[in-house]
């Protein structure tokens, strides 16, 4: 499927001013990316999604369409910051982690397409990563965020992010290889 075109600067300006049609265009264009991030990285994806859009609408006037940053990168950065904030709050409070999804070891039906099967297995394996590692793997590999940008947002050294990336990829590989082994 061909990538959707970027929204025009005029549409973004109108969206920043509260124009309903422009906001609809923005949500339609970038909602799936933000919702995917929330579903993969937040225990409360629906709340996460709504809260991120609230922040986007409040801060949209600060985004410069003629600047070097792409809108999708700017949105992903807002989502990332939001996730870090929520993660820290949960850590302090003692999080109740839902375990309903841990039974994802169920073998996939043979009839499924290989690519789809890969994706499903990967999604299940991703859910088993610790939150910090999962964030790095998803934002870097799925959303294309550079490691130094992730480090900057998380407030840690790039080496720490690389370390999380390696541990995350290692764990994913371990889970995938184990699944394949009869």
């Amino acid at each position: 499927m061909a990538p959707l075109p970027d929204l025009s600067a005029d549409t973004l300006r109108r969206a920043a001013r509260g124009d309903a049609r422009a906001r609809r265009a923005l949500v339609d264009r970038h909602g799936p990316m933000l919702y995917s991030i929330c579903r993969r990285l937040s225990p409360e994806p629906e709340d996460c999604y709504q809260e991120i859009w609230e922040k986007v609408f409040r801060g949209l006037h600060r985004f410069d369409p003629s600047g070097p940053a792409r809108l999708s990168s700017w949105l992903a950065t807002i989502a990332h910051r939001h996730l870090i904030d929520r993660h820290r709050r949960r850590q302090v409070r003692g999080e109740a982690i839902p375990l309903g999804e841990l039974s994802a070891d169920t073998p996939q039906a043979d009839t499924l397409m290989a690519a789809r099967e890969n994706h499903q297995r990967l999604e299940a394996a991703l859910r088993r990563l610790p939150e910090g590692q999962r964030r790095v793997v998803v934002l870097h590999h799925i959303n294309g965020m550079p490691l130094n940008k992730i480090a900057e947002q998380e407030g840690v050294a790039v080496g720490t992010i690389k370390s999380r990336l390696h541990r995350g990829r290692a764990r994913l590989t371990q889970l995938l290889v184990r699944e394949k082994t009869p």
Partner: protein
Amino acid sequence: MTDYELLSRMLSGELSRAEERDLKTRMKKEPQLAAAWEALHGLPDILAAMPEDEVPPELNAAVLAHRRVRQLSRALRLVPWALAAGVLLLVLGWPDAPSEPTAVLVEGRQIVDGEVMVLAGGVPVSIDGRAEISVEPLDGPLRDGSQEVNDMKLESIAAALVGAVVTVVVYEGSALINPGADAVALAAGETHTVGSPAPPSGPGDRPVTTRTSAEALASASRDELTDRVSELEAELASLTFEQQINRGRLSAHEGSPQEWPDDLPAAFEPEGIKEAVAASMARMEDAELVSIDCDEFPCFVTMESFAEGDDWSGSVELQRNIMTSEMDYEGEVSTSTWAHAHQTNDDIQKYVTFYVAPEDSITEEVSSRTKYRIESAIEDLVAENSVPDEADGE
């Protein structure tokens, strides 16, 4: 470092030539390692091709209409924690400020992060940053911590908002107390105390008593709170880990000892938990078992983590998840984890504590009591392991 991590570093080109050569030599002899490399090598492409999700239409409709969905259910999930902290906190819709998540703080003290609107003792406070809000009701404690919040009607909560002294301390960012004509704006480092307005008359199950002088009480509390703020500022300056910020302030509700449920599956009996923990310890690389406390229901497990970085509790949580998935139990499982870091002279002790139990066995009372047990155990551990500094003669 595990072989898988070495492979990942090779994928990123971070190994030296010699290390890479050694690993490739091993891959020729070890089929498992070769299979792992094959899987890892294709991983970035598969991840990059992961499809995006379709957004549920009602969610986009809510976003564009600036109304929130699922607020109340999240509020109820917060209740056990709030009760354990001696705080009544509910997240509700707020008609005047639809764009911000809204919390109601009836009494107690709460650290607030991010952009949040809080109805604190009847006073609206808009936070953008990090602030501490405390609410001291004028008429003493409102309710027993074990009361079922789920059964409380909103009218009862509103009626409970009977006069209070509200203090806001801004640590980062800003706060706006009583947004509107009489708004008080606070910047980082500033503190403001207000007596709350008189409550609205209405239905409620709590008798309204004669109010004493709100100003006098507010003034008396201001001195106490000023002292408290100084203590907290000193404490904040010395803390390394964010987990410690709330720890000292959230005094747990002691509760009463809990009986073991009659119908508890064997996997959650002390022997079952001990066996499961023993099996997962074999996989644990950067943590050691400190204790399994089964004096009361539920058992809780304490581990000392030696992992570095800010995700130091991650590997224990991962093993806990794997352990739980391997237990001989098909039903829903409730689990909660606490991470505690304590800095001594030149050392940091890092403990991760968790429990697992059938979901329907963890009532608010059990949750509250367990938190108290865990806090006490950690305090004992820290005290036990704190070596006096000889140079100071302490």
